């Protein structure tokens, strides 16, 4: 297992270097690239031009420049943003990356969970009206143009029903008199969620160790989850930060919903197909013949095996979800990496744009790694 993870890590590092190279050379090949932009002014004397190029290291050969750039990226020295001068790019990214991570992880978990269970049930009980309804909805949301979906959401929830905030990361009126930043609250939120997640994971592991009975395991897992979430909610409720945390979460609902809807259908449709295939397998007949209850055959045997292609599909669709994410963040004014990337590109803020691109890439590659590890846990055939 460790060997496998190590191998994947090295592969990902290589991919990352290639990715950075592509970004670097694209920036240089672009008409109106950095060099042209810095020396555009016709009033510059040749000496001044030389001096500028020298100061930015642009007089060196492209390879030397690339290696320097690579070194800088790995030491998080991404330069200074033009549009937020003089804030270093890394500081901006460090602030915004967590927001994107939270948005995506939540949306992904929600859509995966719902897509997985609905695809599973649809395949198990075929030919019902619900199957056709769900499939049609699935195909529609799968093919829908993301901005259109967002406009529909904004119109429906924000304007027509008027119950949801439609832009901003938070409600400015509420935060006017506070002496802490939104970022602090946000990081606390993230910390809480990670702690609850860790507690759930630990409970899962403990349950597996302690008992071999599915019922006992479930009881352990659900009680631990309930206790840790109750504890978290209680902490936020009594702390003075509670209302601010709630404000951020409330603003997150629509963006999460959008990303979840966009990626839900893929999971659901693939799960349904995969499940229909798995049901035909002989080991399902064996499981039935063993006299296991219908639910156990469905969940423990069919769904557990059928989910493997769903995970593979998820990895493949990650790029699609990220591009959907850029649009989602921008349209909901969710100040994460997607919106940063778009604004920096539009504002010709090269250091920030390339930094945002690189870190979006790192995020995606890292997500790949996580999914790969999960996959290896789920499929013993790859583990060795």
């Amino acid at each position: 297992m460790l060997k496998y993870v190590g191998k994947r890590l090295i592969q990902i590092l290589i991919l990352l270097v290639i990715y950075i190279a592509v970004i670097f050379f694209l920036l240089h090949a672009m008409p109106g690239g950095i060099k042209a932009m810095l020396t555009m002014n016709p009033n510059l004397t040749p000496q001044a031009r030389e001096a500028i190029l020298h100061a930015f290291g642009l007089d060196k050969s492209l390879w030397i420049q690339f290696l320097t750039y690579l070194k800088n990226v790995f030491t998080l020295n991404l330069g200074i943003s033009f549009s937020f001068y003089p804030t270093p790019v890394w500081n901006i990214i460090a602030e915004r990356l967590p927001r994107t991570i939270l948005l995506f992880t939540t949306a992904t978990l929600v859509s995966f969970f719902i897509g997985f269970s609905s695809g599973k049930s649809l395949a198990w009980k075929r030919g019902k009206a619900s199957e056709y309804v769900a499939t049609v909805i699935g195909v529609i949301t799968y093919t829908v143009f993301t901005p259109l979906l967002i406009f529909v959401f904004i119109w429906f929830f924000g304007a027509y029903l008027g119950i949801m905030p439609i832009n901003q990361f938070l409600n400015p009126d509420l935060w006017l008199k506070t002496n802490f930043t939104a970022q602090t609250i946000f990081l606390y939120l993230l910390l809480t969620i990670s702690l609850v997640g860790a507690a759930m994971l630990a409970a899962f592991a403990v349950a597996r160790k302690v008992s071999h009975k599915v019922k006992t395991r479930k009881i352990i897992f659900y009680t631990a989850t309930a206790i840790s979430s109750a504890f978290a909610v209680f902490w936020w409720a009594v702390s003075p930060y509670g209302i601010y945390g709630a404000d951020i979460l409330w603003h997150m609902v629509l963006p999460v919903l959008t990303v979840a809807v966009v990626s839900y259908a893929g999971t659901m449709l693939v799960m349904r197909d995969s499940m229909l295939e798995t049901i035909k397998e002989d080991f399902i007949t064996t499981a039935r013949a063993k006299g296991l209850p219908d639910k156990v055959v469905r969940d423990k045997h069919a769904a557990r095996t059928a989910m493997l292609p769903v995970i593979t599909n998820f990895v493949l669709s990650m790029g699609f979800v990220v591009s959907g994410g850029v649009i989602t963040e921008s349209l909901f004014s969710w100040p994460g990496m997607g919106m940063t990337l778009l604004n920096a590109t539009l504002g010709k803020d090269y250091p920030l744009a390339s930094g945002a691109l690189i870190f979006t890439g790192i995020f995606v590659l890292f997500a790949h790694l996580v999914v790969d590890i999960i996959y290896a846990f789920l499929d013993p055939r790859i583990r060795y």
Partner: protein
Amino acid sequence: MSAVLEVKDLKMYYSTKQGMVKAADGISFTVNQGESMGLVGESGCGKTSVSMSIMRLLAENAKIVGGQILFKGQDIVKLKEEEMNKIRWAGIAMIFQAAMNSLNPVYRVGDQIIEAILAHEPDVTFEEARERVAELYKLVGLDPKRMDNYPHEYSGGMKQRAVIAMSLACNPDLIIADEPTTALDVIVQDMILKELSKIQKKLNMSMIYISHDIAVIAEVAEKIAIMYSGKIVELSDAVTIFKKPAHPYTVGLMSSFPSIHGEKKKLVTIPGEPPNLLNAPDHCRFAPRCPFATKECWEKTPPYEEIEPNHYVACFHPQNLRKQVSING
């Protein structure tokens, strides 16, 4: 000797777009405590359909339209799914035709056997179940250490043995072995079958061996049922079937398969097409391929009758055949 399984006039049909496939059309037989029966017939004659009916694991388009399946006197055709689940594996276990794919690839082999034990015997602890699996592994000739391996780490023969161990896990009264060794080479096949037969005798279980190869069945079954096109055409003890076969199809089957321990016989295949079960005809289904068919055979279905004690045949002219065989032999 009490009957463990009595199948009475079982009819199981598949409905397809082209019409009814009568895969089991009036099947009757009895398996007694400790007895082993062979069910033999060409590919597609409905052997698996019969065993799946007994397990009540039918395809969506399949339906038991008539007859009874009495397991220890209780008709399981009418049982509710939950009640049937109690009989599955604890009462009737099965070794599937596709034993290679009978194991779930994502779980350890041992755990899949333990799962069956715990499902039927909730009082057994996990450790006790593990011990039982270790015993079973020894019984079928597997190293108990391999329990914690996954199916892909097993060879075909090992999977086969593991599947046999699994079928024994809950001490069933009856095991149905549907071509348990087809995917293996002849030597391993022979060995595993013999071991299976030994275990069956040792534990005094009842067994139904299913195969298209009468020579394989002859080694292990005390009683043999010959199936043709959804019907049993001849049934008797193994000796009678070999010494005095009464149905022309039985004779055809015996000459179409070389014996494993071979004084080399000439390989004669049964002439004509294997039957189509779709919209099966009203006359004797073997008539188109039968060298002895008369006008009668083309008009009516021959009754399934006991022509001598414990020797059942569905043929209008079993005597004809006897004469023929004795002249030739």
